[in-house]
């Protein structure tokens, strides 16, 4: 009985994780430009990753594999948004601006210091 219950929980977690991963992939294809595609990718990055890892943790039970899965989860939980931020920031700094929705004006970032002025002559 308990085994059936655990199998059911694993099944629900892994299938829903796979569902959100696929949704993220569909979003990357359907969305029109770079900025909105970043958001689609973050669906598979957060919900997909968390649900799949949770499902694998329940499947593994109380063992060292669970510990390793949790360590992977913690690392992805921190590096995922950080790398998304790095990509988005690089796009902003290189001059790409999101197409604003109807009736909205975007905030301009503070101008960057001129890199040519910063380099000291050798």
């Amino acid at each position: 009985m308990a085994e059936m219950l655990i199998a059911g929980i694993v099944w629900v977690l892994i299938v829903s994780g796979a569902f959100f991963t696929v949704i993220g992939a569909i979003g990357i294809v359907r969305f029109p430009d770079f900025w909105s595609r970043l958001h689609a990718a973050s669906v598979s990055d957060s919900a997909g990753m968390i649900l799949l890892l949770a499902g694998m943790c329940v499947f593994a039970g109380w063992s060292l594999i669970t510990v390793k899965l949790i360590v992977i989860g913690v690392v992805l939980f921190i590096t995922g948004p950080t790398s998304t931020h790095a990509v988005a920031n690089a796009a902003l700094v290189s001059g790409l601006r999101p197409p604003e929705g109807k009736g909205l004006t975007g905030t301009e970032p503070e101008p960057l210091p001129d890199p040519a002025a910063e380099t000291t002559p050798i």
Partner: protein
Amino acid sequence: MRTIGAFVFLIALWLLLSGIYKPMIIGFGAASVLVALLVVRRMDGVDEDRVDQQLDAVASIKYFFWLMAEIAKANWNVTKVILAPRMPIRQHLFAVPHSQKTDLAQVVFANSITLTPGTITVETESDGFLVHAVAYSTDDRAALADMNRRVAAIERGGSA
């Protein structure tokens, strides 16, 4: 004190990740932990660059569970946008003020914004973040101000 804490943490990590409890393997683990600590101590003598952990543990755990619920809700909203036939995208780049005092809490706030699908922290400035939303609605500002308050509360000595 820090060194002892790091030693216990690294040994625990080795024991959990290796899973082979023979004297020789544990000996290798202890030796590599000692080498790592030696290197860290020498590097500390060079730059003295330390990050002080200033977050309240209990409040952080409460915040973590609140954040998981937010991630679930936001995921569902973005999923609806992706699957809607006409894709109601309304992109907007706007400034969000932050009121955390320490760097670490600001990082937690910025990463929380990015982790909830639908909003991404694009730029960090001294007085606030630039946030990009894919389906902007007027509630977004209030929701992020609420998150800002909650992250400020997990700082030690912050208003809980």
